[in-house]
């Protein structure tokens, strides 16, 4: 077993003439929490899509748990999960039916028990048999986290999970994210929230115009002046 959860070498991704990612090199250790910052259009979502096998790289290699994402994406998908600003949930199914459906698709053993366990972790047991469509966006996002962890992935990608949530829901979501955070689980999260990101990450990466322009471990970051650092590398604010 390789020491790295994710190894990215010379990764580029283009859409026609538009280069979304350019020559990215990144290695993420097992259990490490990496936060990716960047202005809109920097390539954060594209990076997450490529790492999570949803999009194929134009060039370069990506290995997840030692597996090349192009040669065996199905094997990679057993070990990863993604929480995005879209929840992937079906509004007209109940929370239980959604979790059961995704659990079946992941061959989750003891499905009933697992559904109850993950719903307890996101603190939504009373809403288990409610249709997802009637829940608030914040609650739907918590169900989405339950969906994402039902097969106990070793790597969790979070693509701006707090987008569109009110401040109260963001706080709740952060608590839930803390509860699914285990020492052995690798987390890669993109966010615009600099303060929250710096607090949550072991390492931060700043992406701008498809390139990594800055990366540092939490111990090396000047947290007080991080906003200025971010601004100097991207030319923008949060």
């Amino acid at each position, binding site marked *: 077993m390789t020491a790295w959860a994710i190894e990215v070498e010379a990764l580029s991704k283009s859409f026609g003439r538009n280069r979304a990612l350019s020559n990215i090199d990144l290695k993420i250790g097992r259990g490490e929490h990496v936060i990716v910052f960047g202005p809109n259009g920097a390539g954060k979502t594209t990076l997450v899509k490529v790492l999570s096998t949803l999009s*194929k790289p134009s060039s370069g290699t990506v290995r997840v748990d030692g597996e090349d994402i192009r040669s065996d994406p199905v094997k990679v998908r057993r070990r990863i999960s*993604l929480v995005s600003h879209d929840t*992937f949930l*079906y509004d*007209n*199914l109940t929370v239980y039916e959604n979790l059961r459906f*995704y659990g079946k*698709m992941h061959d989750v053993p003891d499905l009933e028990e697992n559904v109850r366990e993950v719903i307890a972790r996101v603190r939504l047991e009373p809403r288990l048999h409610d249709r997802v469509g009637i829940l608030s966006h914040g609650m739907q996002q918590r169900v989405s986290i339950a969906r994402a962890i039902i097969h106990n992935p070793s790597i969790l990608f979070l693509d701006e999970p707090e987008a569109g949530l009110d401040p109260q829901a963001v706080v709740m979501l952060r608590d839930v994210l803390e509860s699914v955070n285990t020492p052995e689980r690798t987390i890669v999260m993109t966010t615009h929230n600099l303060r929250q990101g710096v607090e949550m990450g072991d390492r931060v990466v700043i992406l701008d115009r498809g390139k990594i322009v800055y990366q540092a471990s939490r111990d090396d970051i000047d947290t007080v002046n991080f906003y200025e650092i971010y601004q100097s590398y991207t030319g923008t604010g949060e």
Partner: protein
Amino acid sequence: MRGSLSKVLAIFWKDILLEIRTKESVTAILVFALLVLVIFNFAFEPETATMNLVAPGILWVAFTFAGVLGLNRVFAIERENSRLAGLLLCPIDPMLIYWGKLLGSFTFMFAIEIIVTPIFLVLLNLPLFLPRLLLIIVLATLGFTSVGTLFSALANNIRARDIMLPILFLPIVVPVIIAAVEATALVLQSSPWGDMMTWLQIMIAFDIIYLVVATLVFQYVVEG
């Protein structure tokens, strides 16, 4: 094999459950198909010889256009909330998504046909018990939905998808519609089995070819 089947059935059951809850597709398709039949019934006198000639065409026009309406919805439910991405993130061969969706679209269309066909036969003063017509409907619907499910996934990524689906899909599915119309005409004329064998063989060949092709290319249609 068993694991794959359970995933196909999970996708199928999820679509059935969503349809039962929303009734978005079935109601629209059923109303449309019935309207076509009623309008044509007023246009032609049921007793005339012309009716024998046009009846198979009327039936398959109703099924074809109602079917296109239904196919537009097959991947529309996966487009909202990026649910297709959620399915693609599951550790399964994408062809299982195709088979689950195909099973759903076949079931919806076949259910509509089972309701509409007796009404069609009654409106046109034709005998109700026609088992050979049932066989034609099954074969043609399988061919229709095997191509249609693939094209529905393809059109899902196109901006004017509601218009593009019939434009892309109908030229491909024309052979199976022609075979179904010709075979239906022979059934309504009470011709012997042997006369309709060629048309049945065309439909069987179409079904096999497009099931294999669609299964193989589906992955490239849905994955970026």
